[in-house]
């Protein structure tokens, strides 16, 4: 589904310094695979998502999605950010329909789908509300519905639950898994929460900062469907310890 080969991204700051955000990233993601990218801030996780989406060109290396080289934004992809970034002047329903509209599709034909998605995410009854009348978690659900509306086969998520409180966060993770079980798609999910990364993923990509590199790709290998109780599973702890070791070992070494 996604093939990154030796991808590097550098840019020049205003002062003219070269910053290497991502270096030598090689990663292959299978169709319908759930892959999480975990690492401290500044390790180029978000840049990697933008590269995959074709929002910014790679300085070096090759990026392919569905065997097509990525040079610009392409069809059949959904994006969810840390902030819901809804349109405050639109109702919840019209916010969900926004993606269809921007894609140049006829929003009326997507009304039913949008209502179904809102029901799936427990937002029935809120269709006519404005975003500011919703809690942060509900707003993020709307943003996820917006991304899911055209039923993309690839979903890119940039710390989508990062701005939520811990309890809502767990709830949302399980909800996302439920949606994913129901309508399979390839998901590339950025987070800085290690438990979240493991709970969700088939494979966890551990990244280290400055420049952003892949330290290791770990197979989670825990059974699905997953529940919160899995966190007490020794296998969960083993993976978690490994991720932690990879991230903190580098930090100590850097000192």
């Amino acid at each position: 589904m996604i093939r990154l080969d030796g991808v590097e991204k550098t840019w020049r700051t205003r002062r003219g310094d070269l910053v290497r955000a991502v270096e030598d990233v090689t990663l292959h993601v299978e169709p319908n695979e759930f892959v999480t990218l975990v690492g401290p801030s500044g390790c180029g996780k978000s840049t990697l998502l933008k590269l995959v989406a074709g929002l910014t060109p790679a300085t070096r290396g090759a990026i392919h999605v569905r065997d097509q080289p990525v040079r610009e934004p392409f069809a059949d992809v959904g994006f969810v950010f840390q902030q819901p970034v809804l349109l405050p002047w639109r109702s919840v329903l019209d916010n969900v329909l926004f993606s269809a509209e921007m894609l140049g599709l006829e929003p009326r034909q997507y009304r039913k789908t949008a209502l179904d998605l809102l029901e799936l995410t427990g937002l029935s009854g809120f269709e006519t509300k404005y975003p500011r009348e919703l809690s942060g978690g509900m707003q993020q659900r709307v943003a996820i519905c917006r991304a899911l509306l055209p039923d993309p086969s690839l979903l890119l998520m940039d710390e989508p639950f990062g701005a939520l409180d811990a309890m809502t966060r767990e709830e949302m993770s399980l909800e996302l898994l439920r949606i994913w079980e129901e309508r399979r798609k390839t998901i590339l999910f950025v987070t800085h929460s290690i438990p979240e990364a493991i709970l969700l993923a088939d494979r966890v990509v551990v990244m280290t900062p400055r420049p952003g590199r892949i330290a290791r790709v770990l197979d989670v290998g825990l059974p699905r469907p997953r529940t919160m109780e899995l966190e007490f599973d020794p296998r969960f702890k083993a993976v978690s310890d490994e991720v932690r070791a990879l991230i903190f070992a580098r930090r100590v070494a850097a000192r």
Partner: protein
Amino acid sequence: MIRRRVVAESVVPAATLVGALLVWEAATQAFRIPRFVMPAPSAILAEGWDWRYRFLGHAWVTLYETLGGFALSVIVGVPLAVLIVYSPVLRSAVYPLIVLAQSVPKIAIAPVLLLVLGYGEVPKVIVAFLVAFFPVVVDTATGLAATPPELLDLSRSYRASAFKTFVKVRLPMAMPFFFAGAKVAITLAVIGAVVGEFVGSDKGLGYVILSATSYWKTELAFSSMILLSLMAIVLFGAVALVERVVCPWLAPAGEE
């Protein structure tokens, strides 16, 4: 609870205003203040009433000078803001000019404008425009630039055209900012129109104030001033009303 809010929001300010007017009235009587120094509210009211028909004509002139200047500030200011936000080159070319235009005291430009454009209403409209356009440009530009970058990325990832993104995302996003600027602009436009009239005119409320003071008719100057303030308040309210109609999502949750 609701009654208490009504008392706090309307009865208290109204009572304060009436109280202040009564103190004013009493003070002018008690201290025998000459009417040309500080006329009593009753005298101002009486003079205003005498002038009610003549005021209509003068108020009309000032009103359309104001509205003309305001309309011009929107017609010029909003496209200018769009250019500034979309083109870095234009931004660096135009921005200093705008700031320069804003820094020149308008009262100093007014005589020159009258010299160039003549004695009619046009120079007043131009002065009103010059005073009012700055907040429109700056606030609208700020609003257009305030679109979260994620939203722009999202539009790009859907391969929407720049025009579509502008119409569906950036422009509505800037609306509250535009109205913040427009509310300042409308009150400034009143000032601009009056400044224009001060410099040279034979009609308008500014002209009435100027000629009234030169004949020591302070009551008339005061009633004209009050009329001007009322006009500014009503115009401000009108812009605020348009804002509520255009941006209904801004209403606080409790007020729907």
